[in-house]
């Protein structure tokens, strides 16, 4: 299967060419559908959300900013946010690039971490998650794959909010150390 490079897809998006969406779908539709299906847990809803994602990207094709991260990350963020909105209603949600854009606008930092994650395989990501202490892994899974808020995780796990925050931070810290090690070996 031939796949257009991301740079070319971005060009097509910029010129509002519909082929950009075809190419985007062929490149990331499967990954996005996998993520959406995991969050919403229903095939029909997942199909609807997937279509919504691509239509939103098509109708706001100029909203992608390569300086903030890769096309794949952006599409996954769109998919996750849409899926979570679907399962939790249209409540306000912090998008990944809202609090972090100050950081990822610094090319040096962004490039460093882009290189790290680009070198990681699916199995290594799974290995890194498996290497987390169970309570940290569960926190990440409930939040990222389950679409639960910190308050919901707190109730579900029977732990204080502060513990949820601490576990989320420790999990991401541990993952970055593990992934950094995997990428450099």
């Amino acid at each position, binding site marked *: *299967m*031939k796949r257009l490079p991301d740079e070319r897809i971005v060009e097509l998006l910029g*010129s*509002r*060419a*519909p*082929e950009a*969406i*075809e*190419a985007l*779908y*062929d490149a990331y*539709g*499967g*990954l996005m*559908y*996998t993520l959406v299906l995991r969050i919403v847990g229903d095939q029909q809803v997942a199909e609807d959300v*997937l*279509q919504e994602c691509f239509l939103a990207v098509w109708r706001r094709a100029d909203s992608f900013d390569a300086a903030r*991260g*890769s096309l794949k990350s952006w599409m*996954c963020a769109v998919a*996750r946010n849409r899926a979570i909105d679907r399962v939790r209603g249209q*409540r306000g*949600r*912090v998008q*990944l690039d*809202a*609090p*972090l854009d*100050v*950081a*990822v606008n*610094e090319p040096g930092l962004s490039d*460093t*971490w*882009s290189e790290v*994650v680009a070198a990681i395989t699916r199995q290594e*990501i799974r290995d890194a*998650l498996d290497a987390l202490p169970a309570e940290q892994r569960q926190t*990440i899974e*409930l*939040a*990222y*794959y389950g*679409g639960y*808020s*910190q308050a919901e*995780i707190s109730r579900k796990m029977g732990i204080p909010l502060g513990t*949820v*925050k*601490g576990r*989320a*931070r420790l*999990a*991401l*810290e541990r*993952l*970055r150390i593990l*992934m950094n090690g995997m990428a450099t070996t």
Partner: protein
Amino acid sequence: MIDSAECLRVEEQLALAGVGALEASELDSDVRRHLTVCPRCRESAASYAAVVAVLAEALQPVDPPLGVRRALMAQVYGDAAGSPAVRARPRLARLWHALPVSRTFTLVAGAAVVAAIALAAWGVSRGATAQASYQVSGTTADPNARGTLVYDPNVQTSTLVVHGLPGPDAAGGGDHVYEVWLIPANGPASPAGFLTLQPDGSTWVAVLNGAVPAYHTVAVTVEPPGGSATPTGIEVISGAV
């Protein structure tokens, strides 16, 4: 002077926001301000974003049904019909792109045209009901593929002739087959046959089961040997009926 307790609090917020567990109303307003003055937290923010960006890839991949792509692109091409980018295209190219499913104005490879014309002439010479001919084209997976589907109502048989698909090493050589599907406007795809490579080494032909006019779309996917009950592989050909 950066307060390490403040950094810890900001990093916890960044981590929660990163994994999507933070509501908009719960984000402290001073986080952004802190990031502008704290290199450590900026580094944390970048690394959390990078880690979160690959979490989706840990999941076992599930392919969306083929109909999702088709429905999506119908909407996108419909939206695009009046856009400046599309209006700037030459007329034939514009018509091609405006009809993503049928792509009626595809330039068909010579042999397929000849086959279609020959079949049509045969039908006319018999004084029978006119045949229907539909153009099909490659998806972005195989954009050079072109073909024609000819339906003869007199014998209720359809023949799909395709050029431009990769050869036996890519499909039909034992590892994979090209399976043809007839898809109604609403409902699941029906398996209709397999493309077989002709002796010229470049023409693929399938004689299809099913009354083609009852369907909305014809499509070809790459499937494992023996074919599949429902489409599972990459869609390489699509056309409206």
